[in-house]
């Protein structure tokens, strides 16, 4: 495999964002994933999100584990530092990176094997620590690079391409994140970019642990009849609970539309999201109601998508650590080294 650079020349009329960047500045080299892979749609959505939010690409740190999904950070945000870490252990690396520099935007890209199988422990602790980041699980229920084994999110009874049936109970990362204290929880579908882009935008602006479980069909190993993560299956069973509009600045007046159908939520950065409810009884800020809704949808064989849970009231890891505003990696010697006089006092106390 080689490194495929895209041509640097582009048409002068390409639209530019508030920073003067074109969409091309947010792209990476050409993807080497299979044609039609859901993951590439997610990469495209991420490119659109950061372009439209006008976040400087170099201020984003993108981290991943191992697997098809974890390869994708190469294919977007080419001007960002990226880190392809250890299988199932990206959450700890991201946590450490976040502690070192609180000023960057952190994007964790993982898959269902990476997060729900080998990495379930780190996934759980990442959520409960409230690390300020967006964590995207590109969930296809299958191991691609090793060619078609079930992962821990594969539904019971779903069939592998080789014809085997999965008899294990699936892990629902959304429900898990809910019980672990994640403060922004969403589910999307790689085939529905219109829904996915505002979800990622809102997650990026959320201060705290934001997770989006994106069902992303594997065209090579999990897109056949009998799979519950195929394009056809998800399209047929998608239960959209709401749509988001993300507004980067606090709007002066919000047109609420029909009463009860739109909720405006102000985020920490002053921006806001408008949640247009589709399911009439759905309120993403009531955890108990969310749990019962999700369980009911699961029983009915539906895949609930949208912004499923949001809590803007909880502090993030840096608040809990009470760290200084200046990034820890930018502290000077004088901030860090107490010097010989302090050491003399410590010595004196040890005699």
């Amino acid at each position, binding site marked *: 495999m080689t490194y495929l650079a895209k041509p640097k020349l582009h048409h002068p009329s390409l639209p530019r964002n508030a920073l003067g960047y074109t969409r091309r500045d947010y792209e990476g080299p050409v993807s080497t994933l299979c044609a039609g892979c859901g993951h590439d749609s997610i990469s495209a959505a991420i490119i659109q999100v950061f372009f439209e939010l006008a976040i400087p690409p170099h201020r984003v740190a993108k981290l991943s584990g191992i697997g098809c999904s974890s390869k994708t950070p190469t294919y977007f945000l080419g001007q960002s530092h*990226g880190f392809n870490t250890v299988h199932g252990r990206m959450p700890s690396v991201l946590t450490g990176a976040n502690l*070192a520099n609180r000023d*960057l935007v952190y994007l964790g890209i993982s898959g269902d094997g990476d997060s729900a199988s080998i990495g379930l422990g780190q996934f759980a602790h990442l959520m409960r620590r409230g690390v300020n980041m967006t964590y995207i699980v590109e969930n296809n229920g299958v191991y691609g690079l090793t060619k078609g084994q079930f992962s821990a999110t594969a539904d019971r009874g779903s069939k592998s391409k080789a014809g085997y049936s999965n008899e294990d109970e699936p892990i629902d990362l959304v429900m898990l994140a809910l019980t672990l204290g994640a403060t922004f929880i969403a589910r999307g579908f790689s085939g529905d970019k219109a829904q996915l882009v505002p979800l990622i935008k809102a997650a990026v602006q959320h201060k705290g642990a934001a997770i989006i479980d994106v069902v992303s069909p594997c065209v090579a190993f999990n897109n056949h009849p009998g799979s519950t993560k195929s394009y056809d299956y998800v399209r047929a069973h998608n239960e959209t609970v709401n749509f988001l509009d993300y507004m980067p600045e606090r709007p002066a007046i919000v047109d609420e539309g029909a009463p009860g159908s739109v909720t405006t939520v102000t985020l920490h950065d002053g921006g806001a999201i408008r949640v247009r409810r589709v399911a009439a009884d759905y309120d993403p800020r009531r955890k108990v109601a969310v749990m019962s809704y999700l369980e009911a949808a699961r029983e009915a064989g539906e895949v609930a998508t949208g912004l499923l849970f949001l809590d803007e009231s909880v502090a993030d890891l840096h608040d809990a650590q009470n760290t*200084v505003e200046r990034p820890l990696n930018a*502290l000077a010697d004088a901030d860090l080294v107490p010097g010989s006089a302090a*050491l003399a006092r410590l010595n004196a106390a040890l005699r």
Partner: protein
Amino acid sequence: MRPIERVNDFVVKFANVNGSGSASANGLFARAVLRMGVPVAARNIFPSNIQGMPTWYEVRIVEAGWRGRRGGVDLAVAMNPETWNGDVAELEPGGYLLYDSTRALTAGRMREDIVLLGVPLTGMCAEMYSDPRQRQLFKNIMYVGALAALLHIEPEVIEKLLAEQYAGERKAPLLDANRAAFRRGHDYVKAELPAIGLRMERRDRVGSRIFVDGNSAAALGAVYGGATVCAWYPITPSTSVAEAFKRYCQKLRVDPATGKNRFAIVQAEDELASIGMVVGAGWNGARAFTATSGPGISLMQEFIGLAYFAEIPAVLIDVQRGSPSTGMPTKTQQADVQSAAYASHGDTKHVLLFPEDPTEAFAMGAQAFDLADRLQTPVFLMLDLDIGMQDWLTEPFAWDDARELDRGKVMTAEELEAGRDFGRYLDVDGDGVPYRTYPGTHAKRGAYFTRGTSKDRYARYTEEGPAYVDNMQRLLRKFETAKELVPAPAIEKAAQPAKAGVLWYGSTGAPMAEALAALERRGIHLDRCRVRAFPFTDAVADFVAAHDRVFVVEQNRDAQLRGMLVNELGIAPEKLVAVLHYDGTPLTSRFVEREIAEKAALFNVVPMKKVAN
């Protein structure tokens, strides 16, 4: 029976029950000896338990300043009925047994060749205190009073130590109660017991030295080394490293203006997450470390390899212990040397530092962060339980205020803007160490994708064989560069020209000076090499080359460092004679002396007639 008679040179061993509050009383005793101007070598011997199990504290009072255990006990303070028989049996002939005489001893179970010193501690405590917890706690201070009287420790010294410990109005009642218990024990001995042959006399042999454990010292070294991120998981005997780091940071690293922390400490869910966080923070330009022990190092293997290949600075403080499981983990060993040196998959080699005591644990603890940044690689600070958890009389910590933290080769936004060529894995200077950028440095230049392998000099993805080999060869050059940066060995000539040498590292040094002095008296002269780091510098190779035989003393079964010397320096194995101690107890000078003397005779290091002398 002749009772032992010694001044400022004897071993006192306390036998206690875990959780009975004896630790602070025993520490008080050791500090009192130091305040009398006489050095001590003190060691806790404890089980893997919180409360109720036997525990011992051994204080070697040693005017000559030897740092190791001697072996044997001259005075036992037998406060644990459960271990009574063993404690009595361990006494040297002519030794002394201080015991609680509240109840009469059963006849027929006592040695004839020791001196019995009965003090009715329980009875006196029952008279003085009504609260059961107080009765227990003050019994400890009371035996310190009895010891002070027996050994001629000036009572004012202990009263002053108590006053320092219980300073302030709030603690005044505690001070009075402790003083009363101390005096009661002291006065009882003065009135009721005869003088004994063990005695202290005031000297001035402690100087400016401090009394501190190596884990605290390493943690303080991390503070001075500029560490800002600590991620760890509790494991004996390393836990107190992270706890001390927190204590020192709260004292030294809180911004006075805002009250905010210039540090972050995460107790992770396991060792994998600990090292992952360290790697993430190191990748992002913060100085980060973890503290662990052998089993933790095992769990961290995959990440250590990633950090090696991705060239990410990380510091691992490995406080070695007996492994695995529980039990031996409260005992000391040097048995992680090879698993640390070659940790992980693929071809890897790591920098190890071997401090010999808390003073070096501090110095190398700080230096480890400079080395990690300069070499962009994991660096192991190899402590062990003996250095880490025991209080040592050691030279005071020192810091040069002119010293700057060495961040290594980090390309700045200005350099990138000026168009300087940036290849993350490009060997610009020929030393194998490339430049790195911190994430977020420059809008258009300097970003790269970090992977383990499969990359070229510009961090572009490739699976080409030559690119892999090119990178691996550069990593070897980098390891060569490390030889020039790590602490050099401490080499010392014997008093007489010697054909043989002895080599050791870490806490093994504690009994070595004493053992070598004893060997010299037997006519065995050995040149000394204390290895302080891996990779081995040329001076280590030269030392081995210059001698016919070299004894390699270490605390593990498989002669791990010896094996590394053979492999890394291409030394003929028969040249290196292993001297191994690995039962979990700290090495004694008697053991080293005996082992080397026997092997020296075997290998003709000295003429047979000399040994016979």
